[in-house]
């Protein structure tokens, strides 16, 4: 295989000085950590930065200081891949292991995927597992590292055989002699026999051609399921440390309320109480059981002050599109001068919670000048940063172990429960576990920001769309100071994550998008899909309304205004695929009370087409079937991709039909699943997923892009059935 002998110049940004770390010679394990640099943020004009965010080409963080991909191969030939992303259920440990194993020519039976933590393979920004970016951001770097390791092993293997490099080949975690395949050295044997230092090649080894992929593109089974079906997988809520006690924390009656006065009261004398911890703005109890800790909270002497008394109508008044102002985030042509007949509509998406099945959980053991944290977190770097600030230790002194996460969806940033466990452990001097109740999780997390969208377009007498204008109003996501950066807002003038999915990609000659930041005194932040959820709902509903206003078929309309070039071709393939699979063209033959709705999405590189079949009987809306075609560029694991899409559809149907969090007197009215029901198996539509690979590289994610296209497909089906537009979620007849 001569292709692997070729080399090419070193890639931009690859920092080789810190590339290789070899575990002490005697241990016979090759461990490689890699640093890959990226372009640093260049401060450009506001509009350009926003467009970079919105187009998915986000400015990357400055190059990390520590290796972020860590691979160990021991003498037993087992390869341990420390996966630099957190397993939330999306299958990322499997997917990234597939990529590494393919390029390294590993025997899949000898691959063990492990979670990277602050000691191995950690980069505080990169490990933040959100935004459906794991595969796109790591596909090339992991392959480059894998190719380099593979070539190092091949060269060393040839040397140990006393042969030319061209006389050996690699495969199944071993180096073979081409002329005599009985002669082989496993990677582990090569490493064990290696004399002296490993030296990194100065050039990047060539990557495998895609025609030789063994694992990439295959539905490899998930690596985490055996532990999950036997109950052995360890989540944040499951962590048990020697001598561990349980913590509970006092919560305010209203959002934003702070402790005016706090005293122990008679909490210390309550049964099982080990310590009462009262610090600046914080009151908690450590006890021998969760129950006793929570019971003792009632005996604290607390007085709260401040806080909001806001109610739902007030929130909706704040989060609305004003007459003027806002930040321009897209401008093509001259919208105001385009002329034509005006069509307009306004849409609204309420707040919703994540309702991830595992509530917030962390265990902490703070011992003097160091701390150990086990946390169910998507953001171990942020968790560490906030804990360091809270307990006044250096970040380097805090070891964070991300556990298996029982559902993330944006909620698990670790900044609340991780800090609480650390504060309690530090004060009490014992290991402490804090696990939130469902009531705490329902009320005291942050939630999906409420959003209001307003669109208008102008149409010529001939039925051409001349201009489109979109205004987005939303509360915080990235600008939530607890989990993001309020400072960024002052740089960008927008919340870039709330504006995701808000640009108009349709080839309408004149386009303008304006964003309005509408902060509310109720915490809002990351929620599956980010801004693409409300924005896709608004745009794709409006496109359906425009199609109707111009007497066009909803599919034909979209095809007519496809973006130019490769993106347009990808759209055309996806939209036609979902139309054909769903019987879109034969929809007139559906019985009365049934209809199809079409929607698409372009979110962070992924092209989506969705058709929903909906039935309406009496007062009941039922989503019967959903078809989804999705093209993220290259699908690494088709079955895993299908699972993400199926989950996204269930998520989207739940939001479209059921979910809404309501605020009264500054607090969520729902406390648990009795007041916030989720979609059940019986309400789940039949789902057909069509994963499409349009290229040889992943260009978009799969965890979120589909979510936003589901509600508009349902709304558009409802419009087809009832003749009425459904512009506010959840939909009510």
């Amino acid at each position, binding site marked *: 295989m001569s292709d692997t002998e070729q080399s090419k110049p070193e890639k931009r940004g690859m920092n080789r000085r810190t590339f290789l770390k070899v575990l002490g010679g005697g241990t016979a394990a090759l461990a490689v950590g890699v640093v890959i640099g990226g372009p640093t943020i260049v401060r450009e004009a506001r509009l350009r930065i926003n467009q970079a965010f919105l187009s998915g080409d986000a400015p990357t963080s400055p190059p990390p200081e520590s290796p972020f991909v860590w691979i160990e191969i021991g003498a037993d030939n087992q390869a341990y891949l420390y996966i630099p992303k957190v397993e939330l*259920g999306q299958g990322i440990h499997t997917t990234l292991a597939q990529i590494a194993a393919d390029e390294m020519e590993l025997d899949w039976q000898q691959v063990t995927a492990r979670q990277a933590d602050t000691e191995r393979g950690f980069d505080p920004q990169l490990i933040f597992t959100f935004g459906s970016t794991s595969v796109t951001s790591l596909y090339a770097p992991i392959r480059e590292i894998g190719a380099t390791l593979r070539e190092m092993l091949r060269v060393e293997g040839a040397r140990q055989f006393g042969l030319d490099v061209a006389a050996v080949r690699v495969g199944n975690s071993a180096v073979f002699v081409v002329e005599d395949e009985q002669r082989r050295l496993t990677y582990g044997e090569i490493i064990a026999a290696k004399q002296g230092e490993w030296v990194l090649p100065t050039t990047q080894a060539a990557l495998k051609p895609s025609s030789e992929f063994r694992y990439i593109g295959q539905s490899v089974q998930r690596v985490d399921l055996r532990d999950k079906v036997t*109950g052995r997988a360890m989540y944040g*809520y499951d962590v048990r440390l020697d001598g561990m006690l349980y913590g509970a924390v006092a919560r305010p009656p209203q959002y934003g309320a702070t402790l005016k006065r706090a005293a122990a009261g008679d909490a210390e004398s309550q049964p099982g109480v080990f310590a009462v911890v009262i610090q600046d703005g914080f009151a908690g109890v450590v006890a021998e*059981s*969760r129950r006793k800790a929570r019971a003792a909270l009632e005996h604290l002497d607390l007085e709260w002050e401040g806080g909001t008394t806001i109610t739902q109508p007030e929130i909706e008044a704040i989060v609305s599109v004003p007459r003027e102002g806002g930040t321009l985030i897209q401008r093509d042509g001259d919208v105001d001068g385009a002329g034509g007949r005006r069509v307009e509509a306004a849409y609204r998406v309420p707040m919703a919670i994540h309702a991830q*099945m595992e509530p917030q959980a962390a265990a902490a053991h703070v011992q003097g000048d160091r701390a150990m944290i086990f946390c169910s977190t998507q953001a171990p770097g942020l968790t560490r940063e906030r804990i360091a600030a809270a307990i006044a230790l250096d970040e380097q002194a805090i070891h964070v172990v991300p556990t298996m996460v029982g559902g993330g969806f944006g909620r698990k940033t670790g900044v609340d429960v991780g800090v609480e466990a650390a504060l309690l452990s530090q004060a009490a001097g014992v290991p402490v576990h804090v696990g939130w109740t469902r009531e705490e999780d329902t009320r005291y997390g942050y939630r999906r920001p409420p959003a209001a969208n307003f669109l208008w377009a102008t149409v010529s007498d001939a039925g051409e769309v001349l201009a489109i204008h979109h205004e987005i109003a939303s509360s915080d996501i990235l600008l939530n100071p607890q989990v993001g950066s309020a400072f960024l807002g002052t740089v960008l003038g927008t919340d870039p994550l709330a504006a995701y999915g808000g640009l108009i990609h349709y080839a309408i000659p004149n386009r303008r998008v304006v964003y309005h930041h509408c902060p509310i005194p109720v915490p809002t932040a990351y929620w599956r899909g980010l801004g693409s959820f409300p924005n896709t709902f608004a745009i794709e509903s409006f496109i359906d309304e425009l199609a109707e206003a111009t007497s066009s078929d909803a599919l034909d309309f979209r095809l007519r205004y496809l973006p130019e070039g490769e993106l347009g071709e990808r759209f055309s393939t996806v939209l036609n695929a979902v139309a054909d699979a769903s019987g879109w063209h034969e929809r007139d033959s559906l019985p009365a009370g049934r209809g199809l709705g079409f929607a698409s999405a372009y979110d962070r590189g992924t092209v989506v087409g969705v058709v929903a079949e909906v039935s309406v009987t009496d007062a009941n809306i039922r989503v019967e079937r959903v078809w989804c075609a999705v093209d993220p560029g290259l699908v690494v694991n088709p079955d895993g991709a299908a699972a993400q899409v199926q989950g996204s559809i*269930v998520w989207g149907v739940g939001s479209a039909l059921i979910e809404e969090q309501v605020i009264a007197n500054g607090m969520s009215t729902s406390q648990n*699943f009795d007041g916030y029901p989720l979609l059940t*198996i019986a309400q*789940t539509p039949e789902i057909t997923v069509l994963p499409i690979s349009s290229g040889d590289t992943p260009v978009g994610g799969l965890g979120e892009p589909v979510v936003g296209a589901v509600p508009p497909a349902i709304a558009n089906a409802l419009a087809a059935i009832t003749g009425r537009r459904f512009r506010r979620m959840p939909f009510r007849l």
Partner: protein
Amino acid sequence: MQLSINGRAYEVDAEPDEPLLWVLRDALGLTGTKYGCGLGICGSCTVHLDGVATRSCVTPVSTIEGRAITTIEGLAQLVDDVEVLHPVQQAFIDEQVPQCAWCMSGQMMTAAAFIETNAAPTDEEINVAMGANYCRCGCYTRIKVAVARAAELARERGEA
């Protein structure tokens, strides 16, 4: 008090009204049974009491002394020191059902009890049997397929 869990006797010191869930998880370290809501709504905490699927978060521990408790840790069997998965566990892997899997112990315990009573369930019967177990990752379509597959596997094993 004494509890019989997965065929083993445990001496437990717990308040009588302590829910079984927390005795399992925090007192005994059997953390495979999950907490979801504490109200018996979501089903994450489902275990078997004498073979019947039961929500452990609303089951006071004092009410079940002497009854046979099975948790997810006891669903597979050891045969000659080899772990043989229950048909439901095997089917949930075969169909690649779980995502985050926090709800899955409860889903599988519910399904395992169900296929004991219905060896060849229809989709509708599965919807009813599994209808009160939430899965936020949205694995429902696969759960449906896997429960039917588990029933089939159990029949095959019974015939073997």
